[in-house]
């Protein structure tokens, strides 16, 4: 059994975290997938090469009748790791670019993304006005990107494969979409837009429909990111699981080759999902902002 694990470990670094979990449960074949799926979920400990590190646990706090558990979990930990990585990279890039006239290395690399987000996402969707919201969208893009990527590192975990994390990002997106619309149109126009421009008798039907529309946009953002990031992991985990189902090392190369391929695909998916989240957030912000400006443009 250990020889199998050793082979896998040397074949693919990215799955070494999974194999530890798997090794303990190979006897219960029917439970393998359930156990494998646990790997993508939150846990109160960190997986390290020699076992587990328990993270601090706090007693739940009761706020407004809701039990809130502020314990540091694996996903909170990787949330912070990602935040620190983003901060480090972005500050290094900013230092480099302000120092020299010609951007090089990390400064140039980050600037390519910044220019891309500005010229291909913000300005086409929101116009020149949107440049004001650049810091928010840049933070969203880089934070989600790095969170997506941390799961591809051995023993790492993807915080965005947790629906709570993506829900929180969607809540922030919701606030930004509404506040940018109110800022651009004024509160009166914003509320008038919610009635859908129909007769006031229909308002009791119309307003819930429009309000539901406001909520589903970020909700879809949340579910899309969560599903994509979880889905990729489930595919990798399932492929590795095949080895233990067949209980032979001879099938190992095929799932591992697939897993490595999927991992490369995951790199692309991580980038793509960060892009899509940023793109759609700016699109929704632009839709809210252009209700008034598009009328001006049409004349």
């Amino acid at each position, binding site marked *: 059994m250990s020889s199998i694990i050793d082979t896998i470990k040397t074949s693919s670094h990215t799955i070494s975290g999974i194999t530890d979990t798997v090794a303990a449960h190979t006897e219960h074949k029917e439970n393998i997938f359930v156990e494998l799926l646990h790997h993508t979920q939150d846990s109160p400990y960190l997986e390290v090469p020699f076992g587990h590190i328990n993270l601090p646990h706090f007693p739940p706090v009761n706020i407004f009748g809701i039990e809130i558990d502020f314990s540091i979990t694996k996903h909170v930990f990787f949330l912070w790791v990602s935040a620190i990585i983003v901060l480090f990279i972005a500050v290094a890039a900013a230092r480099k670019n302000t120092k020299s006239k010609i951007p090089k290395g990390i400064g140039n690399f980050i600037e390519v993304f910044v220019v891309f987000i500005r010229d291909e996402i913000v300005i086409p969707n929101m116009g020149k006005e949107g440049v004001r919201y650049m810091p928010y969208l840049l933070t969203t893009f880089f934070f989600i990107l790095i969170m997506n990527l941390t799961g591809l590192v051995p023993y790492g975990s993807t915080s965005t494969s947790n629906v709570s994390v993506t829900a929180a990002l969607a809540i922030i997106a919701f606030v930004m979409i509404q506040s940018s619309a109110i800022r651009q149109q004024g509160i009166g126009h914003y509320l008038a837009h919610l009635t859908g421009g129909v007769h006031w008798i229909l308002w009791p039907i119309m307003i819930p429909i429009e309000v539901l529309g406001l909520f*589903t*946009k970020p909700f879809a953002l949340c579910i899309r990111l969560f599903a994509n990031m979880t889905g990729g992991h489930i595919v990798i985990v399932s492929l590795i699981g095949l080895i233990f189902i067949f209980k032979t090392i001879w099938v190992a190369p095929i799932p591992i080759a697939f897993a490595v391929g999927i991992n490369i695909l995951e790199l692309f998916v991580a980038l793509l999902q960060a892009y899509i989240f940023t793109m759609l957030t700016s699109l929704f912000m632009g839709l809210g902002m252009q209700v008034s400006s598009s009328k001006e443009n049409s004349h």
Partner: protein
Amino acid sequence: MKLEDLNSLAKAYREAMPYLAIGVQMAAMVIIMFLVGKWADEKFSTQPWLMIAGIIFGISAGFYHFFKFVTAESKKSNTSSKNEN
């Protein structure tokens, strides 16, 4: 990948994304209203009426937003294509 390729890919996504997103939003509306209805049913013990009402409302809201989006989008693409000409 060249930057131009990336930009054209971004342009394709930018144009296709609203249409892809509206489908997900339609589904999301039904799911949200289903969950709200189910929650309300449990709270007021009126199973299964509020859930059914929620689903119907979700579906109709989904269609409303879908048509609103498609008409707005086709109008937008018409004016932009006119502007190009």
